């Protein structure tokens, strides 16, 4: 935590190396969120990069009392929600995602395991894909980041009752999709 605070302070003074340390420390949770939100690895990387660029330019607005990772996730979720809304208005070229490079590089996985992982990944993406962007954000933050309603509300800038309602409706929609499949 002390190192994190020191990196933030140095980055605020314009030290891009210190900001690079923050990127290395939080690239995984940020990328995971953008991947679960967008479902395509290339778009997820672009969104995760954009999240860090925005974080750098808005670093002076970060309040030290708040968890830094949650602040980053807030930027990432808003960016992804906006992007999904924009994409829903624009024609889609392809929803197929090639195998993410981090899996192709794994030496330990057998072909069957790679296939299982791909199937599982497709299933998760299909289930999440049925949800509107703000429902999707609530589900991802609840299931993969184990956030409370209060934390999700703070991250998505909504209320606890809205989060409760979104999670309930999202679960119903996903259950319906699973039963129909």
């Amino acid at each position, binding site marked *: 935590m002390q190192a994190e605070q020191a990196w933030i302070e140095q980055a605020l003074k314009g030290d891009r190396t210190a*900001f690079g340390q923050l990127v290395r420390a939080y690239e*995984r949770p940020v*990328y995971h969120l953008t*991947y679960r939100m967008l479902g395509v690895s290339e778009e997820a990387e672009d969104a995760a990069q954009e999240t860090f*660029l925005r974080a750098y330019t808005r670093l002076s607005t970060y309040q030290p009392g708040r968890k830094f990772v949650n602040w980053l996730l807030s930027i990432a979720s808003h960016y992804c929600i906006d992007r999904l809304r924009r994409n829903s208005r624009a024609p889609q070229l392809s929803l197929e995602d090639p195998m993410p490079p981090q899996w192709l590089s794994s030496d330990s996985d057998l072909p069957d395991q790679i296939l299982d992982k791909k199937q599982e990944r497709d*299933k998760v993406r299909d289930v999440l894909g049925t949800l509107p962007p703000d429902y999707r954000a609530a589900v991802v933050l609840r299931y993969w980041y184990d956030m409370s309603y209060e934390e999700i509300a703070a991250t998505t800038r909504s209320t606890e009752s809205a989060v409760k309602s979104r999670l309930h409706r999202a679960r119903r929609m996903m*259950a319906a999709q699973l039963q129909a499949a």
Partner: protein
Amino acid sequence: MGEWIACEQNERISEWMSLFLDGLLDADRERRMEQHLNACAACRAEWQAMQRIAVLFAESAIMGPPLGFAVRVERRLAERVRERRRLFGGTAVLTGSLSLAGVAVAAVGMVVLSVVAWQWIGSFPAMQQGSSAVSQIASGVGLMGKGASLFLKDLLLRYGVPVLLLAGVGLTVLAGLWAWMFCNRRDRSRHNGYA
């Protein structure tokens, strides 16, 4: 889905299911939910689907970015900082050029106005020769206009075409430079760091 509609309590029970999954359902409602699920096949099917989703998500891996992600972010950040500086420089140049052009236009406008005023006042000699304040101002404006008119006539006859040409070329180059920087910035912002 048709079965769900058949259960009148489904909306309330499914809300309780969601709360239960988040560990927020009290013991009394949990007991009532269990009783209902034992009796209602439609709600039970929905409950099983919700549980399967929870298991599916719990078993799915946490995704990390491809190798070299941080380096690509740093590269893109450096590019964006450079672009901002360039854009700021371009804006400063444009603002300066526009200010200079504004001053020049104002000066030319004043001279033209003086010349017009001198010619107009010249047709009223009584106004130029009177002793009132209006007459004195008119006389002053008339003299300024006369001087400016002679100066402009001389300037345009000697250097008119080169001066106008130089100013036009300068402003065109500045506008082109600024437009190029703006377009270049837009192209780079779409690039996410892959070669």
